[in-house]
């Protein structure tokens, strides 16, 4: 068992002007036994980071330590990691059972013990009926589970799982998330789980590291990412439906600070404890972010009002799109809200739910 520490890790593919800077100055600590999710849009450098941790990709600069040992120059097997690949990478000439058991076979585990463990895992992953099949005839979701199983069959210091549920249907994914979480609680091993799906990341992980554009944006638990995103990228990426951003201008009135939307008749109050942060920043123009969950329908003296353009009914909730002036807001409302396009709607909100960002850098101000 061990923790994983990345310090100032860079990955540049190729060289010179055609080089791709896939990972930039990444500092990340994954604690011993922690379930860490690496979350970010496609192409942001997640797989590259994993491949460096596993030892399949040379580290351009920086260091990776496992439990205090620098592993930069160690072969994957010396690092004692198990990995499930985004592309499955199953052995096409093996049956599913042989695929699952291969890491044990390599370690000289006797055949009947291998068989027992493979069957156990197949049951967990719900692939018992395909144990004798070979990968080329399997569906994407089946191959993905075999690949996950091959990573889970031994108990390495660190588990590395790259997009292991991307090809599962929603129902199965839900069960597998649950099983994986339970497995982690049993094993208490360090796991690094890569995904571009925030639902998976937030459901599974103790902490989530959000990446974008080759760089780490924020590391934190669900609460931190949701309520205190460090920048507009995180605020936008985490949460569904996405945050609405509104350009605002600061107006000081009788000791209190107000932020007035540019191009719409919306006024945000700024609580006194946050005024100092705005003062420290010194600017007059900001971008305000509001999560659709934090707008409450209210007919009496609303903070903002507008015309409904779309009412998307999603089962247990509805998403309203409301236009007021130049601004389009989204609000998450109970499904029984009977508002049709063209109707007038008013909303209230808690000033503490308003996120204020620097417009230029996107960094959270208050």
């Amino acid at each position, binding site marked *: 068992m061990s923790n994983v520490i990345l310090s100032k890790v860079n990955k540049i593919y190729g060289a010179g002007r055609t080089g791709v800077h896939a990972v930039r100055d990444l500092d990340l600590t994954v604690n011993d036994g922690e379930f860490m999710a690496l979350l970010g849009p496609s192409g942001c450098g997640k797989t590259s980071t994993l491949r460096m941790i*596993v*030892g399949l990709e040379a580290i351009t600069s920086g260091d990776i330590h496992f439990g205090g040992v620098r592993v930069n120059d160690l072969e994957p*097997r010396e690092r004692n990691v198990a990995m499930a*690949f985004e592309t499955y990478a199953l052995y096409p*000439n093996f049956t599913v059972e042989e695929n699952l058991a291969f890491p044990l*076979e*390599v370690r000289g585990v006797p055949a009947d013990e291998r068989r027992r463990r493979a069957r156990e895992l197949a049951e967990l992953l719900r692939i018992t009926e395909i144990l004798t099949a070979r*990968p080329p005839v399997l569906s994407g979701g089946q191959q993905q589970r075999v690949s996950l199983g*091959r990573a889970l069959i031994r108990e390495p210091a660190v588990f590395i799982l790259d997009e292991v549920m991307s090809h599962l249907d929603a129902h199965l994914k839900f069960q597998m998330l649950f099983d994986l979480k339970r497995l982690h609680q049993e094993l208490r091993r360090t796991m690094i789980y890569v995904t571009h799906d925030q639902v998976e990341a937030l459901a599974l992980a103790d902490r989530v590291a959000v990446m974008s554009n080759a760089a780490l944006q924020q590391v934190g638990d669900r609460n931190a990412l949701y309520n205190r995103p460090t920048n507009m990228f995180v605020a936008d990426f985490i949460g569904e439906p996405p945050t609405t951003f509104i350009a605002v201008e600061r107006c000081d009135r009788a000791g209190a600070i107000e932020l007035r939307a540019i191009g719409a008749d919306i006024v945000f109050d700024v609580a006194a404890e946050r005024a100092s942060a705005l003062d420290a920043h010194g600017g007059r123009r900001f971008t305000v972010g509001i999560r659709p969950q934090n707008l409450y329908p209210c007919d009496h003296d609303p903070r903002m009002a507008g015309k409904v353009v779309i009412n998307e009914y999603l089962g247990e909730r509805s998403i309203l799109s409301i236009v007021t002036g130049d601004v389009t807001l989204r609000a998450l409302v109970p499904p029984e809200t009977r508002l049709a396009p063209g109707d007038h709607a008013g909303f209230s909100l808690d000033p503490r739910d308003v996120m204020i960002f620097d417009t230029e850098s996107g960094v959270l101000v208050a």
Partner: protein
Amino acid sequence: MRQAIVRGDPSTYPDWFDGKRRQRPLIVSRWVPIAMVGLPVAVLLAIVIYPTVWMFYHSLRDTNITGLFTGNHAYIGFANYATVLGSERFQDSLIHLLQYLSFGAVLQVILGTVLALILYEVVRSNLWRTVILILVVLPMMLPPSIVGVLWRFLLTPSNGAVNQALLDLGLISAHIEWFNAGISLWSIIIADVWNWTALPFLIVYSGRVSLPPAVYEAARVDGAGQWKVVRRITLPMLKEVIAIAFILRFTDAFKFVDLVYVMTSGGPAQSSELPTYIAFQRGIREFAIGEAAAYAIIIFAISAVIVTLFLQYMKRVMRAQGLA
């Protein structure tokens, strides 16, 4: 959902269909398709079917060279086959063929496979890979007749380069008589291995290059050593490719005449004769057309059986892997 397409009603056309383009009927004489199919069929008839039928016909008759031109030959049933199968010369040549297959063809495939895997696993620089590839493939570009002459020189007992080298290295103390009975067939095999190892080498090398790299990364992470990877992953994945190399070398063995002809003429005392060489000798040299035809048909039958077995095996392998 499938939708009925009504001719001439553009609203029913699927969206990939470019409605503006009218389908114009392709107007050609009806002889064109007949000619296009007929020509290849005619060629096939002329160079494959006709000679085969012709040969089978004469294998049942007592045709010799004069009989062939005067039309003076008679049906003798399977007497030619009986002669061939009963002759010690043919039985010996079958043993020679077996020796050639199991030491020549098999060795070529094994050697080619080993060389190809070593080249791929050990040599990392692309430049060196290319250089070695070209060097290994060079012998294959020489016609067998030249290879035969070359190796007759190299193996000349008294002053040939091979004996000289072995003497200098102290591996032998007296000249090896490369063209004596019992050894001459080995000389042919050596020359043939030198000539043809490059073919299985090329086939297996290109097969190895096209194996998915991700599988090898998985094996690295799973902790498999290099030998384990070769034995459990690479070789099984190259099974079909290696089988194809075998088929090519085996079928070649059945039409293998040139090296025998150039190096030993089947001698001394018929000790290095292969069936095809006897067929050639009996038919072209000694004008026993009927008997030569029987030889050819027998060789054809043996090779057909072997290739069929191979193809069956391939089919089984491919089905097991879900490829067929």
